[in-house]
């Protein structure tokens, strides 16, 4: 079930992200007020859905070993993400870096999650 949902959600996340960056990041679209707020939540929904599905998968996973691998990857990924964000935050404070958009936190976490999963699996081979 989760596989099918992910099959639909993953392209949706990517499409929504590209659309949002193109449309709003480069100001081709100009929503305001409540519409803009609703759009922001709408754009974030597939990401939130991904996390919820992951949570369901983790709670339904019977194989303790697989679950342990996933949890370890999660911990490594959040650790790496928070560390990098702190590093980035200091650079923003020092005005060395200009970009402050928090939209990149989720893709960054996904990247670290993929790397951590690969590394953790390598360790148990």
């Amino acid at each position, binding site marked *: 079930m989760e596989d099918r949902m992910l099959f639909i959600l993953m392209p949706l996340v990517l499409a929504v992200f590209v659309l949002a960056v193109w449309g709003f990041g480069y100001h081709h679209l100009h929503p305001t007020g409540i519409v803009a707020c609703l759009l922001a939540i709408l754009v974030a929904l597939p990401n939130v859905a991904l996390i919820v599905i992951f949570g369901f998968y983790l709670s339904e996973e019977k194989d303790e070993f697989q679950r342990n691998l996933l949890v370890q990857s999660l911990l490594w990924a959040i650790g790496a993400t928070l560390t990098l964000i*702190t590093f980035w935050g200091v650079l*923003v404070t020092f005005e060395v870096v200009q970009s402050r958009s928090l939209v990149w*936190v989720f893709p960054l976490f996904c990247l670290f999650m993929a790397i951590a999963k690969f590394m953790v699996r390598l360790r148990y081979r």
Partner: protein
Amino acid sequence: MEGKTKDLARSRHNRRLIVFSVLLALAGSLDAWVFIRRHPTGVLAYALAVLRALPMIGIMADFGLYVAALKDEVMRSIIYQSMLWSIGATLGFTTVWGFLEAFVHIPHLQPLLVMPVFGLFVGVSLFLVARRYE
């Protein structure tokens, strides 16, 4: 005996947490002081940013060691669930805030505040998940 081991692991974790928190506060103060006095650029700015992130790595590694050393399966499950909830909440929050920044031009949230936000979510979810197991 098991209770004693658990207490030992927890007190070790607490001590390390205190040390890393003090280091984090010192690094933060040093960053602020250097920023006000010298307004660093280039290599110095990057070095200070790394210095600020180092205690964070310590805190995360310590937390990982603590959870790995935990023998109590229920406690471990509570921590795992809370972590998952707080990761989800933090990522959801940053995504919504990020898009709101782009759409409605609400105030920029400093990236440095993501860590305290995550900490807040961990605290809330630990409380809520632990209550479910009571």
